[in-house]
């Protein structure tokens, strides 16, 4: 008797497992992997953006793939890129072979993404980069299209274009200073952290700044984790610079803004300061980071188009902070991938690649259009320009990050004037006005 009971029990257990295995493995789901440094704010943002998109889409029934509706299932992979570059490729491997994802989004540190890209391409899965800004990731697509065609850059645009936007910001601020403070020749000090992606910008600055009619008075390259930049700041002040062109992506951005504010250096900080893009910047600089500027994508109150406000507000409502470029996993899923799947009716990577290449997608930060290089080969890189993506220049004004550029900006003499909704006038620090308005 007992033996029979045991047998029945075992059989029941096995069939239970079989059924659940069956349903799990044959469930109609689109598996999207999100890979990034999940213990850090970059990875968390990537995951959050993806979650927001997946929940929204699943709530309205899922994705229509041909005849059936499929739900999106997100799979989180910690690449730990910031601490250990070997973990990233291993995590990508897992996503491909164990979790068998259909699509991958994310990435951050170029050194690791180059390898992760190779793995995803080997498995012929579409990998949309949300985070890494190095141009090489896309030039690979042009030089070896058949291997790398599954790679797309989702956000932000590459560092060369980031440089271009920063220079436009610089020009704008220089114009404002010239007008309000009557400064005949604007002097610019270049301060960029010692990192490989800054080198081309530093080189470009030495060309571009004189061409813009300004004088480049010095180039400083502190360490990206520098905790004391008073030396650099003293030297900059001595050089008489009116504008400090900053290119920071790490903690030096906080240190620099804070110490410049504390020392009341009479110069405007313009450029890229990734730490200044975050809500926590005000706190981190103890309020001294007022008037610091940075190029960024999202902030409360700024709208690129009608998709921006709902995204920013929903993100803030759900996660309590302003989204950064990393949160564009939302746009990649909701406005790039899913519409492509629905329009082509398939999950097949090759067909989707062919479709995405020729599409322009409206996203909360503008319009995504994919570039080709000078020889007409697809780069799968983002197009820059009015009507596409320009992002915006922001300034910290009394505790809030406000958009200040483009403010009546013309991309060219025949181009239309652009001012995004929510742009406010630039503010000059009082100690600077005091110094120059004599």
């Amino acid at each position, binding site marked *: 008797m007992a033996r029979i009971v045991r047998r029945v029990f075992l059989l029941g257990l096995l069939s239970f497992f079989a059924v659940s295995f069956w349903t799990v493995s044959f469930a109609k789901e689109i598996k999207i992997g999100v890979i990034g440094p999940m213990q850090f704010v970059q990875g968390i943002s990537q995951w959050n953006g993806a979650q927001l998109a997946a929940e929204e889409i699943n709530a309205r029934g899922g994705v229509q793939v041909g005849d059936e509706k499929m739900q999106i299932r997100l799979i989180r992979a910690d690449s730990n890129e*910031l601490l250990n570059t070997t973990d990233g490729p291993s995590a990508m491997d897992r996503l491909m072979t164990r979790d068998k994802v259909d699509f991958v989004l994310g990435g951050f540190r170029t050194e690791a993404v180059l390898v992760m890209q190779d793995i995803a391409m080997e498995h012929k899965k579409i990998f949309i980069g949300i985070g890494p800004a190095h141009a090489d990731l896309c030039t690979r697509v042009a030089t070896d299209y058949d291997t790398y065609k599954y790679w797309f850059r989702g956000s932000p645009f590459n560092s060369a274009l980031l440089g271009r936007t920063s220079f436009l910001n610089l020009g704008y601020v220089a114009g404002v200073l010239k007008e309000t403070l009557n400064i005949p020749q604007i002097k610019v000090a270049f301060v960029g952290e010692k990192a490989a992606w800054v080198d081309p910008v530093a080189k470009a600055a030495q060309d571009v700044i004189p061409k813009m009619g300004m004088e480049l008075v010095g180039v400083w390259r502190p360490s990206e984790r520098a*905790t004391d930049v008073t030396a650099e700041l003293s030297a900059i002040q001595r050089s008489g610079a009116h504008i400090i062109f900053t290119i920071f992506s790490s*903690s030096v951005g906080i240190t620099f803004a804070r110490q410049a504010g504390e020392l009341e250096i009479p110069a405007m900080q313009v450029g890229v300061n990734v730490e200044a893009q975050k809500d926590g910047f005000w706190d981190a600089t*103890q309020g001294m980071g007022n008037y610091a500027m940075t190029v960024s994508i999202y902030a409360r109150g700024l709208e690129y188009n009608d998709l921006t406000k709902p995204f920013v507000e929903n993100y803030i409502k759900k996660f309590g902070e302003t989204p950064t470029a990393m949160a564009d996993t939302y746009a990649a899923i909701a406005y790039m991938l899913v519409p492509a799947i629905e329009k082509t009716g398939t999950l097949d990577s090759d067909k989707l690649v062919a479709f995405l290449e020729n599409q322009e997608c409206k996203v909360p930060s503008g319009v995504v259009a994919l570039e080709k290089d000078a020889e007409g080969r697809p780069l799968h890189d983002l197009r820059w320009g009015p009507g596409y993506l320009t992002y915006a220049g922001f300034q910290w004004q009394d505790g809030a990050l406000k958009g200040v550029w483009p403010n009546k900006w013309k991309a060219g003499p025949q181009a239309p004037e652009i001012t995004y909704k929510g742009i406010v006038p630039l503010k000059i620090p009082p100690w600077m006005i005091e110094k120059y308005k004599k």
Partner: protein
Amino acid sequence: MELILDIVVSSIISGSIYALLAIGFSLVFGVARIVNIAHTAFYMVAAYCIYYVTRKTGCHPGWAMIAAVALVTLLGMLCYQLFVKPIREKEGAVLIATIALAMAMQEAMVIQFTGTYLTMPALVKGYFAVLGVKIFYQQLLTFCAALVILFLLWALLMKTRLGSAIRSTAQDREVANLMGINEARVALWTVGISVGLAALTGAIVVPLTVLDPHMWMHPLIMMMAVVVLGGLGSLKGSFIAAFILGFVESLVVFLIPMGSYLKNSAALTVMIVVLLIRPEGLFGISFEEER
């Protein structure tokens, strides 16, 4: 002229911080023969403690600093008792244990505070200008605090009985034992003082720096360079070497602005060059193995 003043000011300030750290490290090595890789990790924990206490209880950072120093010193002594004392005889194992402790502390900080960069407000806000060089009041405060601590330490070592005991154990462990000094207890006290020094350094540096769970690595390297340059076990050597390397760093930052990231490498190269000429450091004792 202003450039020279800038360099001098900058090197004095960073030198005093390195001196504090290096002397603590040297002390525990000279007395207990422990290479404490976790020394700067304690410095980091103290800094985070202060941040946490100030944020959570809103009380004045001064109290938070006292609390943090006390807590971290206790933590240090506890770690020593539990993890280092049983394996003290094997230097290699002690080394690994301290590395593991440092990693554990780093991870604990990551879990508690995540990798976001945090800062503390300055105790005294504002700056003043001396001959055209702007100096923060906080930097001055830090420097004075460093001098005061160094003076107190000197007084402790030279004028008190415990200090005597520490110095004699450092000179010759076996004979100190023979003279009736409880060597194990002296070692424990030294560990406490050393970790306390690290915590104090954290306390006075916190308003000037950015907190992140990896902040212990860079000072560790510089501190070890200072200690090696000055001669292991020699407090005077550590003190002087700290200012030498601080000076080298400032030189690099000011004279080669394009290469300010090279300041680490330059300081380390100086250390290696000196070691080539004098393998026991500037003030180290040559026949160490005979002790």
